[in-house]
């Protein structure tokens, strides 16, 4: 059953050097509150799994600026000049992944699969050191599952069962990461007292551990 917690209290779940997934795509569908609290701590050397490192003054982008990320497994860093600077200076390790492969690797971990077979990256540097497997005379790369210790997720709507729904283009990685982390913390813009319609739920509450609330005894 999902529990309620403040962002400040949620920090207790984190340890330095953990692997942390953060939902969002550039400036859209990004969790903020837990990251703001992490910035106040001495915790560091996280391995970040996300679509991108956003921009310097937003969400996971701030974790990079604060030198809290040791390694980032992402598809794109170009929108955060500080990531690029740290990368060029050898201060951060960057593991660039094709975006669709990144998404499917996360899903594989969440869905209990041993990996995925994809043609993406064949004949490129992405294929280095990866097994190539032939199925029905076509070649595929074997990409392994990606899981995390903690996922920090954005949702537009949540109910008290932890069920999540989304507005606009905020679904992105927020829909898949909750399946692939040991502990899932969700920042929802609206937490409703009445259950969300089962027809509209995108992420089932069983994938969610904690919903962030503003006050210790409040609901939002």
């Amino acid at each position, binding site marked *: 059953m999902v529990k309620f917690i403040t962002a400040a209290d949620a920090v207790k779940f984190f340890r330095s050097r953990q692997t942390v997934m953060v939902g969002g795509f550039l400036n859209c569908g990004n969790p903020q509150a837990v990251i703001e609290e992490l910035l106040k701590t001495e915790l560091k050397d996280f391995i970040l799994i996300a679509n991108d490192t956003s921009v310097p003054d937003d969400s996971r982008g701030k974790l990079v600026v604060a030198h809290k990320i040791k390694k980032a497994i992402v598809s794109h860093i170009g929108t955060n000049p500080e990531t690029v600077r740290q990368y060029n200076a050898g201060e951060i390790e960057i593991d660039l992944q*094709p975006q*669709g492969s990144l998404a499917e690797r996360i899903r594989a971990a969440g869905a209990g699969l041993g990996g995925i077979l994809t043609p993406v990256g064949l004949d*490129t540097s992405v294929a280095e050191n990866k097994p190539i497997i032939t199925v029905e005379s076509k070649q595929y790369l074997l990409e392994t599952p990606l899981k995390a210790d903690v996922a920090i997720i954005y949702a537009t709507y949540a109910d008290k069962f932890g069920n999540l729904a989304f507005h606009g283009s905020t679904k992105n990685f927020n829909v898949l990461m909750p399946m692939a982390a040991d502990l899932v913390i969700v920042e929802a813009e609206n937490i409703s007292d009445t259950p969300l319609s089962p027809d509209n739920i995108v992420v089932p509450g069983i994938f969610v551990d904690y919903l962030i609330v503003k006050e210790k005894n409040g609901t939002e």
Partner: protein
Amino acid sequence: MELNKEQAQEIIAKRVAKEFNDGDVVTLGIGLPTKAISYVPEDVHIIVQSENGVLGVGAYQDDTNRDKHIINAGGIGVTVNAGGCFVDSLTAFAMMRGGHIDITVLGALQVDAEGNLANWSIPGKFTPGMGGAMDLVVGTKRLIIAMEHTAKGAPKIMQKCTLPLTVAHKVNMIITEKAVFEIINQRLILREISPYSSLEDIRQNTAADFEIDLTA
């Protein structure tokens, strides 16, 4: 005739727009490829897909319809056309990788005579990452490269790409302000010469051998 950057991009965007057929599902790279939307004829209706999970991308948002939760893959606020929908990243990439996109238009750092594309890294200088480009190019039915013919005077159409590849042997067409090339079975064929260029100009600014067939 010397074109400035803006003029060159307009010529390219207008030419790209002619490649779209009514009903096509299209994905456009950020920057120049996206400009092609402005020149799609009124009787041609395309469905624009954006890798961040929007199908049916419409006009840019203005002050009357701000919604920070609806962006395109470049992070710009957009609207959604009637019939459009929002999907997660898995579904967006299933559309791309799974062969459900008719035409993809991307920019390039380099493209070569064999249809190889390099557009995500200049080692040691500039590596923003591949984002969704590698997935897109693998699954699309047609891949068009829309780019300025040269970068600071240096050719971008090569005999063989020297930069890290995005994909091998997938490019179908190259549209620049000087020329239109098709690549068929790893043969580079000049199809059109822009009114603002000449065969001599194209030869001077192209670092690859090409056949000439302007009849198609």
